C-alpha cells in the first residue's frame, strides 16, 4: 500500500480582508484575521484521498506550527486522513523556508518515509512556493510543481497534468515523488459527518488528567506532537537560527494617494472624463 504524506499549513486568511481587520491607519491587523487551512493544501489532501480511493493508501497529514494548528489536522481527519502529526516546538519559531523544509523532511523520515508527498503549490501568507520543492531536495527525490490535474495512478507510476505557464504538460513519473498542487486540480470534499463524530474529541495531549489520557489513548484520540528533541535535530538548523534569510524590515502598506480628480456620477461629468481620456490616450493609440 502506498504511503502518502500531505504537508499542510494553517494560515491567516489574507484573501478575505474586511473592514474589521483593518487598522485605522489603513494597514491590516494581522492578529485579527481568522486562521484557515491553506487553500491549496486542501487541494493536495483531496488528491491524496482520490489516490487512496483508486489504489489504496495510507494518508498522513503533517503540519508545523503552534498548538492551535491542530485545528487543520482535525479537519484533515474529518475529510479522511488516516494519521495526523503536529510538529511543534518553540525552537522552530521564525523558520524560513529552508529551516522549515529541513524539519519537515526529518519528520517524514522519522515516520517511515513516503512514496508520494503532496503539498499545496504555495501558502497564502507568504506565497513563496518554496517549502515543497525544498523538502524534495532534502530527501533527494524528484519533485513536480504546479500540478493542475491528477490524470492517472497505478502501483508503479503517477501521471499528472502540469501548468507550465506557456504550455500544459502531461508528465508520468515513478515513486518516490513530491508534487505541489494548484487550486485548479480539484474541488476539495466536505468533511464527512461520520468521521466528524469519530474524531471530534481528538486533541494534542495538554494537561489532561491521567484517567482521561488513558481513555483518549484507547479511542485513538490523541494527536501526536513531534518536537525538536523527538527528531534529535541540531538547534543550529532549526527556526530563526537555521534560517539564512532574515527579515530586515517590515512595512505595512498604506495607500500613497495621488492627485485624484473626482468626477460626478452624471452625464455632464462623465462626458468631461471621456474628453480627458480621448485627449490623452485615444489619439495616441488609435
Amino acid at each position, binding site marked *: 500500500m502506498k504511503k502518502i504524506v500531505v504537508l499542510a499549513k494553517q494560515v491567516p486568511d489574507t484573501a478575505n480582508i474586511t473592514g474589521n481587520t483593518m487598522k485605522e491607519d489603513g494597514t491590516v491587523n494581522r492578529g485579527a484575521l481568522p486562521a484557515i487551512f491553506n487553500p491549496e493544501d486542501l487541494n493536495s489532501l483531496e488528491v491524496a484521498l482520490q489516490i487512496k480511493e483508486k489504489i489504496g493508501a495510507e494518508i498522513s497529514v503533517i503540519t508545523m506550527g503552534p498548538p492551535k494548528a491542530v485545528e487543520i489536522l482535525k479537519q484533515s481527519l474529518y475529510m479522511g486522513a488516516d494519521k495526523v502529526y503536529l510538529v511543534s516546538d518553540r525552537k522552530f519559531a521564525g523558520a524560513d523556508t529552508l529551516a522549515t523544509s529541513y524539519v519537515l523532511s526529518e519528520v517524514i523520515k522519522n515516520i517511515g518515509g513516503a512514496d508520494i508527498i503532496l503539498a499545496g503549490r504555495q501558502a497564502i501568507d507568504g506565497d513563496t512556493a518554496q517549502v515543497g520543492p*525544498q523538502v524534495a531536495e532534502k530527501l533527494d527525490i524528484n519533485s513536480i510543481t504546479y500540478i493542475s490535474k491528477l490524470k492517472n495512478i497505478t502501483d508503479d507510476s503517477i501521471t499528472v497534468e502540469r501548468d507550465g505557464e506557456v504550455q500544459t504538460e502531461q508528465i508520468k513519473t515513478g515513486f518516490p515523488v513530491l508534487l505541489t498542487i494548484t487550486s485548479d486540480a480539484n474541488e476539495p470534499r466536505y468533511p464527512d459527518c461520520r468521521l466528524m463524530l469519530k474524531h471530534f474529541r481528538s486533541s494534542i495531549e495538554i494537561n489532561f488528567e491521567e484517567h482521561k489520557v488513558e481513555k483518549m489513548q484507547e479511542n485513538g484520540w490523541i494527536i501526536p506532537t513531534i518536537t525538536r528533541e523527538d527528531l534529535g535535530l541540531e538547534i543550529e538548523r532549526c527556526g530563526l537560527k537555521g534560517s539564512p534569510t532574515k527579515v530586515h524590515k517590515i512595512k505595512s502598506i498604506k495607500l500613497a494617494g495621488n*492627485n485624484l480628480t473626482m*468626477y460626478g456620477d452624471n452625464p455632464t461629468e462623465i*462626458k468631461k472624463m471621456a474628453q480627458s481620456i480621448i485627449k490623452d490616450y485615444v489619439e495616441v*493609440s488609435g
Partner: protein
Amino acid sequence: MKGIVFIEKNPATGDLRNVSKELTYKLYTLLQPYKGEVIGIFAGDELPKDINELFKLGLNRLIYYKNDRLKNLQSFAYKNILTSMIKSEEPDIVLFGATHTGRDIAPLVSSALHTGLTADCTQLYIDEYKDKGNILFQRRPAFGGNILATIITPDERPMMASVREGVMQIPEKKLDNPVKLEEFKIDFNENWIKNEFLSIVEKESKVHFNSSDIIVAGGAGVGSVDNFGLIKKLAWALKGEYGASRAAVDFGFAEKERQIGQTGHVVRPKLYIACGISGAVQHRAGMEESQKIIAINKDPDAPIFGIAHMGIVGDINETIPILLKYLKEEK
C-alpha cells in the same frame, strides 16, 4: 562582486523569455558600481535563438550545458547541473525569473546550496549592512500583499532571489559587450531524468497585456458575467485589452489568464481603468505602476481611490454605458 542570472527559454518560441533579459540588465545595473561580473547560466537542449541579445544588456559571459534529454523540465537534473555551475563560480548573487520554471528550480538549487532564497521580489538593491559589507536587499510583498518585507541573507552565499516577469525593465539604449559562450562540462547521469513527457500542448493565449497602452479591468463589483461585457466593450472602444481582478476570475466573470495582481499578471500600461475593483493590495501589486489610473467604484472608501488619478463614485452599469456613448461621440 559577481552575479549569476538563470537564463530561460520560452519553449513555445525558442526565444529568450523576457524575464531573462530584464534580470540580466537588472544585475548589470546592480553590479556596475562595483565593476562586478554578470554571468548567465543555461541548461537545455538548444540555446535560445536570440541569446546574443543578453550581451547588449550587460551580460559578460554565458555558461551553458546542452543535452537533448533536457528538452523539457527535468527538475532533478536541472538542479544538479545548475548547482554545479553556481558552485564553480562562487557568485555573491543569483537571480531567477519567478516563472513556473524558475519557481520550480530555484528552491531546489537554494536548498542544495544551503542558502537563502527570496521569492517574487519587486525591488532589489545593494547596500552596506553592519559588518557584512555590501549585501543584497530584497523587497517583496507578503501576507497577501498587505506588508512589504525587506529580506536579507547576511551570512550565506550566494544571496538568491526571484523576480516576476514584467517587474524590472529593459532599457532602450543597448550596450555592446562581446559575446562569450562557455560550455560547461559535467558527468551527466541518466538517473537524473525522472519525468516522461507524454504530451505538451501549447496554451493559446489571447491576452496581450504587454503590448497594450490601455487596460480596462473589472472586479467583483461588476456583479455578473453579463455585466462584464461592458468591461470588454470599453476595452475595445479604447483599442485596449481587458483584464480582471482575482475576485472576478473566482466568480467566473473572466478567464484566469486575464487575472491581474500578485498571483496574475503584472502590468504597467499608460492608462488603467479599474471598474468595480476595490483595490485589495493583491490587485494593486499587479497594476499600481500604471502611468494613469482611473477608478470607478460604488464605494467611496474603496482603497483603489487611494492610488487613482481620476475617479467616479458610481455604479459601473450606469457609468460605463454613458462613458462609451461619449467616447464614441467625441472621437
